[in-house]
């Protein structure tokens, strides 16, 4: 199996896992920050919405590191693309195109709805794959085991419903 990005062969899982551990530990050891990305959605909200929820001190005090980190993620994806071929905007989605076959507008709507679930769900569950799945489970936190189990169950149920039942 290859990546959608330029048909590349992915790096070995052990190498990727070790690199993620190293970055997570460096973030904590050097800057005293706990890895977590989904709060970045709230950081973006806090730039525009004056709601009390987006004025929490715990949110604003982390915005100063999380926004640059998230911009870094964009840069990482960009560097990955340009260093392996030509950077080209695309709507191609492999598996999805073959089986579901939505046109551009329906595809974007599908992604927006998926995003709604991601944004609402991660913030209700207080974390995502990074903050709960990687950091929280490594730190043996009960809430992280519960949340990770729940999002894996949600993903497994949904994908199996989509690709083994509906399409």
């Amino acid at each position: 199996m290859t990546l959608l990005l330029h048909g590349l062969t992915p790096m070995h899982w052990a190498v990727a896992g070790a690199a993620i551990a190293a970055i997570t530990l460096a973030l904590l050891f050097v800057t005293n920050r706990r890895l977590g990305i989904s709060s970045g959605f709230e950081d973006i909200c806090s730039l525009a919405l004056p709601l009390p929820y987006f004025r929490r001190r715990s949110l604003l005090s982390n915005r100063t590191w999380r926004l640059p980190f998230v911009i870094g993620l964009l840069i990482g994806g960009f560097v990955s693309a340009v260093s392996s071929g030509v950077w080209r905007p695309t709507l191609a989605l492999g598996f999805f195109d073959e089986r579901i076959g939505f046109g551009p507008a329906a595809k974007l709507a599908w992604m927006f709805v998926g995003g709604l679930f991601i944004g609402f769900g991660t913030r209700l569950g207080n974390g995502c794959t990074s903050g709960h799945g990687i950091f929280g489970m490594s730190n043996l936190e009960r809430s992280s085991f519960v949340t990770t189990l729940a999002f894996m169950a949600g993903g497994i149920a949904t994908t199996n419903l989509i690709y083994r039942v509906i399409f």
Partner: protein
Amino acid sequence: MSVLYAALGALFGFVLSRSGAADYGFIQSMFLFTSFQLYGIIATAVVLTSVGLLVLKKRGRTAAGTPLSIEVKPLNRGNALGGLLFGVGWSMAGMCPGPIFVNIGEGKLYAIAALAGAVSGAALLGVLYPKLQGPLHLPKM
């Protein structure tokens, strides 16, 4: 400092991009149990991070010598419900939060729609939080 965070983020993003963690097909294969790749990544990352955390906690200080502070996430009813909803979205979009940003950087335009949805979803939670707080036992703001 911002440059350091951006650099760590860029490294993280590069690894997500090249490992399959930000790839629609690999995400679906994980949920269909037809590929081991992402399970291997998560398991390796968790095992190595937990060992590293033990070492760092024993030391108790950061590189600069300030006391290590790790805020543990509270357990409440939002975890299971929010996790389940996030799982639905992860499957639909084929992206979890980090990869949304990585995919935009790669030039995958549909990830912009996913980001717009995710920010809207977070905004919706911010609006509903005072109402959900009681029934779901969520922490005070």
